[in-house]
């Protein structure tokens, strides 16, 4: 398949692996931001191709993992209402709230539908005018334009029975939060290629400069990631800290201006809670006042306060790159994809689930 097979080529993978090994002269720790990259790293056992001096940490870029428990509880509360059709992306259904998940609500008769696009929710709302349709609008900058467009169309078509439970987060403040942590170990970042396809990468330049840290905008195929690592390590070895673009077949510096415009039309920057991490300033997108009538939190007011119980789960530390999944005492024992203790064990993009599913032969 074009644009896929050429990035899964064993000869070139070996070539990049050798180039990385030749370049590295000391230990370095690099973090890939996006869960999609984590998934690829685990699926192709890329760590096996890297020299022992190079350590990869897995970042917080898994939207399922960082959606706060309170919001999952709200989703469960709304989805269980008799007149509601609750629409969600598939892998949100298994994420544990404080006492249940959306699958449980579905099995008890809740009308929950897996959709691929927020536009599907729009169609469901048009087809079911007597029902209240709610879409769980989660994700990073990648899902924001489509979600914003759905909200914009809901307003322009005056669809009254559709609302949005929003948990949108953005990447740059999370990078700053990781770098400001006193325990930070990250020395270079692979930025998320698809986030930058939307937003461009100008906003990463002050981060690279201020924190003196190389950032390489990187794709998702194994060769993309190996090349991204090579570019990052080269900067580290040469003492440079710049933003470079490995994923130039998709990312332009200015990003997708039309997508940015619709995001700005519908959303404004707000503080957001990140599951396992806590509140990060200016790290989320919320509905602008002109769209608040489509906010499911306004339409179905309910409050949930969640007190994290003490468990062995270290998903917060994993999301911040302070620990690796297999350093958790619960990993693969009391915490598995069948009974996850933390959200990082749920989504296929969660670091713990990726480690669990794609065990290497050596481990």
């Amino acid at each position: 398949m074009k644009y896929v097979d050429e990035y899964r080529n064993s000869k070139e993978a070996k070539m990049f692996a050798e180039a990385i090994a030749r370049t590295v002269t000391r230990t370095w720790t690099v973090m890939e931001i996006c869960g999609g990259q984590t998934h690829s790293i685990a699926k192709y056992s890329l760590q096996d191709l890297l020299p022992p001096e190079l350590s990869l940490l897995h970042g917080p870029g898994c939207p399922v993992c960082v959606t706060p428990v309170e919001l999952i509880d709200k989703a469960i509360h709304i989805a269980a209402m008799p007149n509601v059709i609750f629409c969600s992306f598939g892998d949100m259904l298994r994420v544990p709230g404080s006492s249940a998940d959306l699958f449980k609500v579905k099995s008890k008769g809740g009308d929950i539908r897996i959709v691929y696009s927020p536009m599907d929710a729009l169609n469901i709302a048009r087809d079911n005018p007597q029902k209240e349709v709610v879409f769980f609008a989660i994700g990073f900058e990648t899902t924001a334009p489509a979600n914003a467009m759905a909200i914009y169309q809901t307003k322009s078509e005056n669809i009254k029975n559709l609302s949005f439970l929003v948990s949108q987060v953005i990447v740059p403040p999370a990078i700053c939060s990781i770098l400001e942590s006193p325990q930070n170990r990250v020395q270079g970042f692979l930025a998320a290629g698809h986030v930058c396809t939307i937003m461009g990468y100008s906003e990463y330049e002050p981060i690279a400069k201020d924190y003196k840290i190389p950032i390489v905008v990187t794709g998702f195929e194994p060769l993309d990631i190996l090349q991204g690592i090579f570019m990052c390590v080269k900067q580290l070895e040469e003492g440079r800290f710049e933003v470079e673009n490995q994923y130039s077949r998709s990312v332009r510096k200015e990003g997708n201006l039309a997508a940015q415009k619709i995001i700005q039309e519908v959303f404004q920057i707000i503080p957001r809670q990140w599951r396992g991490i806590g509140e990060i300033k200016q790290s989320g997108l919320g509905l602008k006042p002109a769209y608040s009538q489509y906010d499911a939190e306004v339409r179905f007011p309910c409050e949930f306060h969640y007190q994290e119980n003490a468990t062995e789960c270290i998903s917060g530390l994993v999301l911040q790159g302070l620990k690796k999944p297999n350093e958790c005492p619960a990993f693969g024992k009391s915490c598995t994809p069948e009974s996850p203790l933390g959200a990082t064990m749920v989504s296929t993009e969660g670091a713990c689930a990726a480690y669990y599913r794609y065990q290497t032969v050596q481990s």
Partner: protein
Amino acid sequence: MNLENEINFSMDALNCPLPIDASSFITLAHGGGGKLTQQLIEKVFQPAFNNPELETRHDGAVIDFPKGKLAFTTDSYVVNPLIFPGGNIGSLAINGTVNDLAMCGARPLYLTVGFIIEEGLSMEVLWTIVRTMKIAAEEAGVKIITGDTKVVDKGKGDGIFINTSGIGIIEHDLTIHPQSVQPGDAVLLSGDIGKHGIAIMSAREGLGFQSEIKSDCAGVSHRVQKLFDASIEIHCMRDLTRGGLATALIEIAKTSQLSVTIEEMEIPVREDVKGACEILGLDPLYVANEGQFVVFVKADQAQQALQIMQQDPLGGSAKCIGTVADSPEGTVILKTKIGTSRLLDMLSGEQLPRIC
């Protein structure tokens, strides 16, 4: 089903024998044991499944049976949507059970059919399903010799559920079982994977995803029979239904306590199936099939067996995808396209579409 059959089938499907004089959809009375039940049996089921055993209209079938070992299996079919590109619940119900018998090393002979029909199912849809079952049974060389019909209230079924049980005869001395697998065995795959699962997903309402991909739903017993006819020493077989290729191999590796290594590069996946999997965030190794199987054979017969499989009209893309070793016990190792290796594990449930 070949093209000619498909055309005949669609013409016959127009001639449902019931809708004019009876109702055009199933009512509770069709399952009540009275005249409408009789009419359904006489005008729909009996003409389609016509054979002397069914003709006796007894509580069960009495059959002559050849001497030898029996294989006996049962399966229930609840697919949604009922009709999908490349097949329907009827073809699944026949081929699924026929294939389970074939995987036991048996030649399928007889099937039973139980229908649980939801009130309100269109008679046209029922007829389409029954006609397809007739064709699939004929193609597989099996007779449907007894059956049952129940009708449930509207809302208590999903159109129609079908259970089929099947009996086959074992005509060789091999023990076809994971425990017969030996280190050194070759792992042969009957053809390209993933078509059924993707066809079903694309046909599901509300997914907003369309494709030209048809289910691979087909009987495999003829293909298996050709291997027996050539005296291939088959150690184990498994059809690649729910959970796909990966799950089938993991089950065999765990039961046999051996290690199966497969090459990602050798696993045939059609370009359109690959594309759909990339878009939907699914791994074709775990996507369901309804007409593919793996067979473990002695290494020195692998080439001969592969040629036999490839000569079948449905087996053109058959491949040798791996080998068996004695350790690490109970594992399946995938050699990836980029030259690394990892273990394959069972999924905890259905694959869920990713967010981005």
